[in-house]
């Protein structure tokens, strides 16, 4: 039995920065209360931003526009390749251009409800308020959103809501928004206010006297490990879905930045809250290296079904209408195919578990556009979803215009992340986390088109306002006089990082990094995936330390540390997955309720829906690191709902 489960419960953690008062005034209040940095002094402050996705790119550009000096890092060869680029569907904003009853309050309400009442009201309301400014900002930057013939912006509806508030740029909204942020960042790089470190990966955090003062990063081309110093560090390094090996994340997306920060004292909140996206292309075999998402917007016009009979292997066209089960429309008549992601995913898993799945291995359901094509015409469908159809055709070699698509759920987004207060500051003063890297806004489930909204809200508007307060309260002292590479703490972090890499190279075992990544991923998908049980999670918690031990005995990393070495990069990321996986399982085990993306088989309503336990679990679980393999300490942040009262989510 793993001793990891004997965790202690420490003092509650409180968000001391969120002001009180009416929810719609809190952001104004906070902005007014926050101290400011004199514009002339800003250039004396350096801020490190790790990551160049929507949150990181936007934050770097905006901080530089304000006059700060920014050191920006990304592991990719260009900031434009951050994985935000792959977001397809759209971005929500409470513009109410459709006059369909939308409002800031409704977006706030939908997001809190969609998150199954596990998010902070203050944060979510702020997000909804800022959403309208994001659209203005992006349009000004030249983001080519879809427009109508009158020249005004078009919107569409998205899963989990009944208004049409999602702005989009065909199926490439994330790409267009990211390029907007990248271009803004590029302007600052040209102006010399942002110094870009591409192909440079953060490997550790430097904390001096209890404050984040810099990072240790490796130049992926030369292999050189260096320390970089700043007055504040912002992590915008994305989510940790790659723990599952197969996910819709980019191959190199990783948890190292957040996990190293966690090890240095930042609490990790709600790690078990992972989102399984219902519309991905099913896997074809063991060689599969990643899963590809098909935008959820497809559910607007596509109808999801499986055969009524088990093991019906007829081709889809041969299955008559009355032998098809449009199960989402049947179970959830008012939302139908547009139910939130967690519900759609679980329903797909259920029908496949019943033996009614389609395609190779029975791990798939149909997403059928026949009705949409009959109603709107092929041209209109192509105009709306053409690039998604092409992508599907390319991957599967099937024509989705004539044969229904096959889809299956896949890990897509992690709602959990570093615990942050209203200012997006972690429990380490001077360390901030934005975008998917933090845990703040989505609760236990994220609604479609809300990730882009949150990333940009954090990066363009929230962080650049709140970081001032920290910097103003910690008046500038020439960083280099104070913390330099000679500082004993810096020396220690540098040495630890070098040692870890050398150790990986020295093992010279007989298993590749990928083989371990696959193993931990399969374990997590099995026991900490769409449905979790006490028994399964305990099994995983027993198994993980064994895999970790085997990893350090059998890993084989070719080459040296002083060169471009992709195997070393991979192996070093897996080291962190092997620890993070353990925390995710523990968090999932301790939360003996079902909520949002976290479904505990023991906790369901008689008709199989997730059953929340608000009495026991209406809190965010923030975990404190106590050592590798040692039980972490739980700090609870109680969630208070003054405006949206927890009810059982119902999409029926």
């Amino acid at each position: 039995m793993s001793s990891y489960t004997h965790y202690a419960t420490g003092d509650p953690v409180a968000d001391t920065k969120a002001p009180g008062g009416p929810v719609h005034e809190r952001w104004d209040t906070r902005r007014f209360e926050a101290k400011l940095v004199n514009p002339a002094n800003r250039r004396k402050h350096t801020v490190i931003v790790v990551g160049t996705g929507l949150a990181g790119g936007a934050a770097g550009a905006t901080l530089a526009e304000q006059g700060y000096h920014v050191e920006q890092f990304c592991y990719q060869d260009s900031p434009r390749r951050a994985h935000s680029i792959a977001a397809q569907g759209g971005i929500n904003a409470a513009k109410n251009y459709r006059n369909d009853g939308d409002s800031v309050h409704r977006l706030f309400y939908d997001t809190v409800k969609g998150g199954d009442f596990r998010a902070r009201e203050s944060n979510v309301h702020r997000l909804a308020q800022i959403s309208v400014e994001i659209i203005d900002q992006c349009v000004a930057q030249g983001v080519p959103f879809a427009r109508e013939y009158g020249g005004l912006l078009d919107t569409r509806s998205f899963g989990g809501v009944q208004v049409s508030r999602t702005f989009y740029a065909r199926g490439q909204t994330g790409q267009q928004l990211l390029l907007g942020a990248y271009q803004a960042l590029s302007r600052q790089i040209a102006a010399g206010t942002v110094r870009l470190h591409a192909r440079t990966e953060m490997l550790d955090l430097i904390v001096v006297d209890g404050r984040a003062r810099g990072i240790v990063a490796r130049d992926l081309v030369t292999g050189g490990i260096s320390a970089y110093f700043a007055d504040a560090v912002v992590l915008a390094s994305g989510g940790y879905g790659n723990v599952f090996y197969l996910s819709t994340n980019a191959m190199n997306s990783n948890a190292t930045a957040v996990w190293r920060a966690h090890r240095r004292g930042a609490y990790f909140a709600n790690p078990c809250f992972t989102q399984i996206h219902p519309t991905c292309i099913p896997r074809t075999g063991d060689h599969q290296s990643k899963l590809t998402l098909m935008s959820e917007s497809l559910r607007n016009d596509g109808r999801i079904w499986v055969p009524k009979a088990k093991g019906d292997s007829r081709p889809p066209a041969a299955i008559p209408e009355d032998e098809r089960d449009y199960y989402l429309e049947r179970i959830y008549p008012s939302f139908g195919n547009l139910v939130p992601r967690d519900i759609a995913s679980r329903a797909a898993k259920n029908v496949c578990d019943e033996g009614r799945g389609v395609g190779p291995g029975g791990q798939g359901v149909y997403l059928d556009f026949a009705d949409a094509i009959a109603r709107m015409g092929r041209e209109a469908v192509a105009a709306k979803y053409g690039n998604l159809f092409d992508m599907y055709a390319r991957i599967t070699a099937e024509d989705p215009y004539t044969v229904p698509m096959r889809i299956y759920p896949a890990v897509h987004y992690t709602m959990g992340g570093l615990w942050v207060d209203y200012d997006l500051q972690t429990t380490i003063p001077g360390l901030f986390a934005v975008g998917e890297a933090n845990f703040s806004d989505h609760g236990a489930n994220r609604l479609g088109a809300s990730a882009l909204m949150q990333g940009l809200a954090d990066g363009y508007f929230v962080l650049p306002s709140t970081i001032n307060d920290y910097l103003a309260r910690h008046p500038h002292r020439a960083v280099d006089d104070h913390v330099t590479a000679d500082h004993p703490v810096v020396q220690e972090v540098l040495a630890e990082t070098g040692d870890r890499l050398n150790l990986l190279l020295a093992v010279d075992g007989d298993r590749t990094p990928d083989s371990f990544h696959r193993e931990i991923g399969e374990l997590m998908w099995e026991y900490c995936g769409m449905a979790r049980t006490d028994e399964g999670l305990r099994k995983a918690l027993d198994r993980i330390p064994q895999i970790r031990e085997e990893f350090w005995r059998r890993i084989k990393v070719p080459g040296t540390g002083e060169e471009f070495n992709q195997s070393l990069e991979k192996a070093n990321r897996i080291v962190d997955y092997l620890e993070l996986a353990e925390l995710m399982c523990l968090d999932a085990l301790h939360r003996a309720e079902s909520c949002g993306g976290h479904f505990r088989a023991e906790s369901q309503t008689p008709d199989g829906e997730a059953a929340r336990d608000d009495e026991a679990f209406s809190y965010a679980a923030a975990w404190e690191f106590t050592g590798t393999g040692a039980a972490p300490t739980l700090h609870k942040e109680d969630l208070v709902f003054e405006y949206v009262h927890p009810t059982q989510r119902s999409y029926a």
Partner: protein
Amino acid sequence: MALDTRTDRRPSFTGVLWRSTVGKKTAMAVSGIVMLLYLVVHMMGNLKIFFGAPDFNSYAAWLRTIGEPFLHHEWFLWIARVVLVAAVVTHAVAAYQLSRRDIAARPTKYARPSPGRRPWPRLPQTSSGGTPIAPRLLLRRRASYATRTMRWGGVILGLFIVWHVLDLTTLTVNPRAEAGHPYQNVVATFSTWYGDVIYIVAMLALGLHIRHGFWSAAQTLGANRPGRDRLFKGLANVLAAVLTVGFIAVPVSVMTGVVS
């Protein structure tokens, strides 16, 4: 952040153009069109050879009197020659400079050149019985022969111009070399096998050069856009064909005895 208030002195229009690759291409396009217009007139003049020696020779003499009395004798011809030489030099210098740049920009060749246009194998039927994807996704085309031979074609044409001027303008290498009798000189040139070979090869090269060059000029000058591409490609083909046939008609006629 003074990015938007740059105050540095701005270089001239032609300076900006000549210093950039885009501008140099513009210069090539404009000079190319000047030469092309000249060639159209030149070819029409050439065809007068079919009306016999007196017509042709008096046409050649008339060329020297264009613009009189406003222009002095042969002035028009000299103006035209200056413009043409300027066009040829601009075209050639820009091409030379750009080519050097282009070759330096791609120092390494691929181990295997692109196989170019090829039929796509039929995709196998898929596991769920779906129809394979539309072939349009898979199409891949390659630049035409004309496109790939612009540089060598240009060099051939440059050499040809030198020979052509020495042959029929200065008469230095003309077998007959009788000033004032262009008809007879032309016939003399095309009565030699090498005269025919040089001329016909050069005119074929010219056709290829115009076929890509005219469309390319439309592209370089920014005249090309979605609705006009076919028009420009069509025009390029017509111009190339008409000029090639029109020019080659003369040596062929001499060879076959239609003109003698």
